[in-house]
């Protein structure tokens, strides 16, 4: 009886597994298929030589890393200020989290589009990076974490004559490493996959990121499905790698409710 249940359970798990993984498997398989039918890497060499995928990859990586670094720094600063009651009106600031969660991005995108044009930042790295350097969900994640740390450490350091900066970055920040790791991974993954803002705020190939490039390539006559899937694989692999390495932090982060897709 027990074994029958187990077999049934594994059978159900297996069927779901196939359903969940097949589309991605299909993507990998097609990207490796040559026009003659055999296995090949030619689709990858093609998209890198004829379609500037190197550039898109670089843009995605650059924007992703800068935004992640910005979030580590700024969310930490803001979260710390909140946790140590150096800023009043915590409740109001908590409502900004709700606003950012609830306001549909399309309502702000037209003004941001006009704003970026007026500032001369349309179609530049600044347009891709500036709006995302800090996010309120990250701030509250750090705030939560810092509140669990004892204040005595900071006070002791202050008595020893350590300056504000030193206390902040040499003493508190290293202690926050677990929370910052969760934050960094989630920000990077969200940013890497983001489409709408990069799509609307840039136009030239020089600043195009991978998701935008992929969406636009579908409309080109000169690229076939295997090449398109090769491009998709390029976009998926870094995230997959991050996921496999940091699985535990990612799952912890999501269950902490700190993930906005």
């Amino acid at each position, binding site marked *: 009886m027990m074994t029958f249940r187990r077999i049934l359970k594994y059978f159900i798990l297996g069927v779901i597994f196939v359903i969940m993984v097949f589309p991605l498997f299909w993507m990998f398989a097609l990207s490796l298929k040559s026009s003659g039918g055999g296995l090949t890497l030619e689709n990858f060499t093609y998209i890198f030589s004829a379609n500037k995928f190197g550039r898109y990859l670089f843009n995605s990586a650059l924007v992703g890393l800068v935004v992640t670094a910005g979030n580590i720094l700024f969310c930490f*600063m803001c979260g*710390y200020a909140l946790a140590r009651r150096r800023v009043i009106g915590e409740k109001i600031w908590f409502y900004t989290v709700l606003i950012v969660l609830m306001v549909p991005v399309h309502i*702000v995108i037209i003004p941001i589009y006009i704003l970026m044009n007026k500032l001369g930042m349309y179609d530049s790295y600044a347009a891709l990076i500036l709006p995302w350097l800090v996010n309120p969900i990250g701030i509250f994640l750090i705030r939560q974490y810092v509140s669990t740390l004892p204040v005595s450490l900071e006070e002791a350091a202050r008595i020893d004559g350590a300056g504000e900066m030193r206390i902040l970055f040499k003493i508190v920040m290293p202690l926050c490493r677990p929370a910052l790791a969760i934050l960094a991974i989630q920000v990077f993954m969200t940013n890497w996959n983001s489409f709408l803002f990069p799509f609307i705020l840039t136009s030239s190939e020089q600043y195009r990121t991978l998701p935008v490039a992929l969406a636009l390539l579908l409309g080109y006559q000169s690229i076939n499905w295997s090449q398109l899937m090769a491009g998709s694989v390029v976009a998926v692999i870094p995230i997959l790698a991050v996921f496999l390495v940091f699985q535990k932090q990612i799952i912890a982060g999501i*269950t902490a409710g700190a993930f906005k897709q």
Partner: protein
Amino acid sequence: MNRYRRYKGWLLFSPWILTFLIFWLFPLVYSFILSLTDYRLLSPDVDWIGLGNYTRLFSDSDFVASLKNSFIFVIGTIPFTTVIALFFAVLLNERFRGRTFFRAAYFMPSITAMVVIALIFSNLLARGGYVHLLAQMIGLDPPANGFLLSEKTALFSIMGMDIWMASGYYMLLFLGGLQTIPNELYEAGRIAGASRWQQFRYITLPMLKPVTLFIIVINSIKSFQVFVEIFVMTKGGPLNSTFTGVYFVYETGLRQFDFGYASAAAYILFAIIALASLIQFKLLKTGWTA
């Protein structure tokens, strides 16, 4: 000293104040003002037209159709996503060999870029794609030109894809919720002679209420904003059957540069989302516990 430290505190906090003012509050106010004008990109004169855009929207059959599609999308995906995610979570909550492996596998679609998913499925759902072939094999009668080119199936197939993609993500949220349920409750249940189903029905489900609420609210907000899938897979067609609210804003605002009109449409969507979230809170009568 204290005032000095306060001042420095605000300095530390200033990145979020600036970002919030420039990239959230200003756009929110600005687009509301825009929505009361007839501002178009290439025409030099701008006039106040009050609620003119709003009244025009409700007589615009394209906009009404897009609202209808958005509602179908939200109402048609959320129950499935929630139930499937819960099913996955219950399945993967107990300890057994391979649990981490299956969790990771089910979660994988959620970490993949929506653009990539949409590309993959626009092939799988087309004539001769694997999903289309499978549907033929099991005797369903799929549209001859593929799922995305028929006005009867296009929206539903994109909804199906979204359910497939999002289930793994919400599964993790449910798993988080399941872990907060104290084991003693189940023990007490077992002693009282409750069956597994009864334990699930009377212990697990009520305890998961806050998570469920959170999931439903977040998922409605997200589903109401569906855009990338539509942009990549159907561009709103055929016969406007996949033309959703956000796609309407994109078309009128950023293709035709009818900024005032598009902003009004965006605000109506915002109002609907806010209202829907409010109603959901009230209906489930639970506070915010995330």
